């Protein structure tokens, strides 16, 4: 089972006492603010969790995997996530046997 916005809102409702609507809006707004910052070209640094960085990629040659036809991959800006030290350390020892 994956963690979803619904479960996050449920946690804010149960632990902080926000009402259900406030909790849902809070979760929506949180992700929306991160998106807006990135859209503006702003890096997002959430200490203890990680950084969302932006990288500008120049055009490069690509191929349609189905037809083998050569088509250029246009220049674009992409989001990358760099987990922070704390999150890395917490996740490192996960010894689960699923390959998530």
């Amino acid at each position, binding site marked *: 089972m994956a963690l979803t916005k619904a479960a996050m809102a449920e946690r804010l409702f149960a632990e*902080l006492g926000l009402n259900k609507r406030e909790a849902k809006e*809070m979760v929506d*707004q949180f992700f929306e*603010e991160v998106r807006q910052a990135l859209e503006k070209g702003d890096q997002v640094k959430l200490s203890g*969790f990680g950084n969302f960085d932006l990288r500008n990629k120049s055009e490069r040659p690509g191929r349609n995997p189905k037809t083998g036809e050569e088509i250029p991959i246009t220049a674009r*800006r*992409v989001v990358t996530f760099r*987990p922070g030290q704390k*999150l890395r350390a917490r996740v490192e020892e996960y010894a689960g046997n699923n*390959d998530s």
Partner: protein
Amino acid sequence: MTKSELIETLAAKQVQLTYKDIDSSVKMLLEHMSDALESGERIEIRGFGSFSLHYRPPRTGRNPKTGDPVSLPAKYVPHFKPGKELRDRVNAAAAAK
């Protein structure tokens, strides 16, 4: 944008909630997400992206000072895959400039 700037921005927009509620909410959200990943659970946020763990097999590294080999155990690292809406918005904004 830092975590505290994010909290400030949310506080400016959320009129009904107190600053303290927003501060606690942001911290609780990040802790919930970290907890999920720590227990091997994926995170899926439609329009934003998904977080999962990637396996790194054991390898022999080197002590950069002495050059001595050190065996490094297998581990997991957090991985983020941006969702379509996030990809499209970031790229459209960059292309428009």
